[in-house]
């Protein structure tokens, strides 16, 4: 076990914060998108750089991946990857309330990704008395093995990461996607001290 592992209390606390944030985010999204948005219970796990490629390997069929960096006070930072399968993204313009042809497919993906990421993380940040800034979302090139390739490029920066996976479903528009938050090693200890503070307050 690594020193970066969350202990049981910290893990529970983070899980609870994420659950609450998911609830509020899904409520906000539902009102904005005017349809029911289902966020599935996330998985939280610590992964090391080498095994991350393996845990993400089932996503090799991903048709598009959008990446967006986030950073808050107290050294909370990471990268959100939004992973889409090809059949999941056909009605995004409709879902976002745009006319067909008003924005390109790429722009639709980037727009919805940014909305999902920032809505969730804004709520999450307010739970921990923080405030997030975001980099502009970027569509990572969709090559044959895109997610793994991208992650392999990240390996220069970290050995260990906290991985939070949340699945979004909008049944009315047959929309699905996975949001994978990766919090690098250097930020995990910052998260831990925030969690410890919250635990103390209870």
């Amino acid at each position, binding site marked *: 076990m690594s020193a970066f592992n969350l202990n049981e209390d910290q893990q529970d606390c983070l899980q609870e914060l994420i659950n609450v944030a998911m609830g509020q985010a899904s409520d906000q999204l539902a009102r904005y998108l005017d349809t029911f948005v289902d966020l599935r219970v996330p998985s939280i796990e610590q992964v090391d750089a080498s095994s991350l490629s393996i845990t993400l390997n089932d996503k090799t069929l991903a048709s598009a991946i959008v990446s967006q960096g986030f950073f808050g006070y107290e050294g909370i930072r990471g990268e959100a990857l939004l992973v889409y399968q090809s059949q999941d993204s056909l009605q995004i313009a409709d879902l976002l309330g745009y006319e067909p042809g008003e924005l390109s497919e790429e722009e639709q993906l980037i727009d919805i990704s940014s909305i999902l990421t*920032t809505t969730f993380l804004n709520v999450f940040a307010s739970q921990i008395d923080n405030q997030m800034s975001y980099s502009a979302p970027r569509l990572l090139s969709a090559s044959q093995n895109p997610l793994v390739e991208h992650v392999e490029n990240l390996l220069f920066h970290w050995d260990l990461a906290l991985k939070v996976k949340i699945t979004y479903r909008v049944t009315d528009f047959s929309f699905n996607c996975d949001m994978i938050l990766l919090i690098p090693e250097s930020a995990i200890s910052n998260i831990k001290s925030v969690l410890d503070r919250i635990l103390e307050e209870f």
Partner: protein
Amino acid sequence: MTLSFCEKVTNQLNSGVIVLDLDYRIVFWNNFLAIHANKQFKDVCDLSVYDVFPELPKRWFERKLNGVKQLNSPSFCSWEQRHHLFELPHTRPITTDSHYMAQNVTFTPIEDKGQLTHICILIEDVTDVCHYQTMLRKTLDDLAMANRIDGLTQVYNRKHWEECLAQEFARARRYDADLALIMFDLDHFKRINDNYGHQCGDMVLIETAKVIEELIRISDTFGRYGGEEFAVILPETGIAGALDVAEKIRQRIEDIALLFNEEPINVTTSIGVATIGDDDFRYEDLIAHADQALYEAKALGRNQVAVNKTLIACV
């Protein structure tokens, strides 16, 4: 008007800052915009952003800002999807070919005491990035092309041709489809080189590639396999169709009227044909069969088409 310290700093930014109230009226813009839009702030103050920038896609813009307002979260617009939102001139009108400044635009909510009051629009000039990225993409495309093309004959090189064959082979196996392969080799090519020099040999290779490329169908893949050997992949083609194409190739090469230093050069070719069989598990098997047939054609006296032995019964 005296400027606040923050305004003075904002005016030093090499990015545009526009602040809108919730009715999309301009309540602030910095020096960057005063210069690039060529309008002083006092002349646009309190005007609707749509009046100042009539080029804005109104419905799209409104939907975008609605998201910022409702979700209280930032929204982005990158030059890669939309080259520019605001029609502003840029600083490299001479050395780039784009008309307007390429932009990354960020929309962020501004709150006062927990209440959304304004929207801030940040405009970054990314004309340089856009220009270099476009050049890079073109260069990469050119490189990718150069990597697939044989320098002398301008047809596919062996590496790319073989990759195509591997793909077609896998597809044919998966869908149980026909696939034929033609390999041909110019007869006595060494003699041409020896008698007339390598310049003549090169000319023969170039002309051969040219006439065959005109002959084959769009779905076929033609490449230089090596030296004076060429190869054609024919998807969805059985032995009869392949023999037909092979005979046309033979005839066409026999008919080319080539002159080198005003001397006529006669060229013929020997051709091997093979089609995918149940025992072929790898694309290399198909190449081996076509190659065997090619040697058969040579052995039988050149300038002819031979079929792989295992196929003769079917013809």
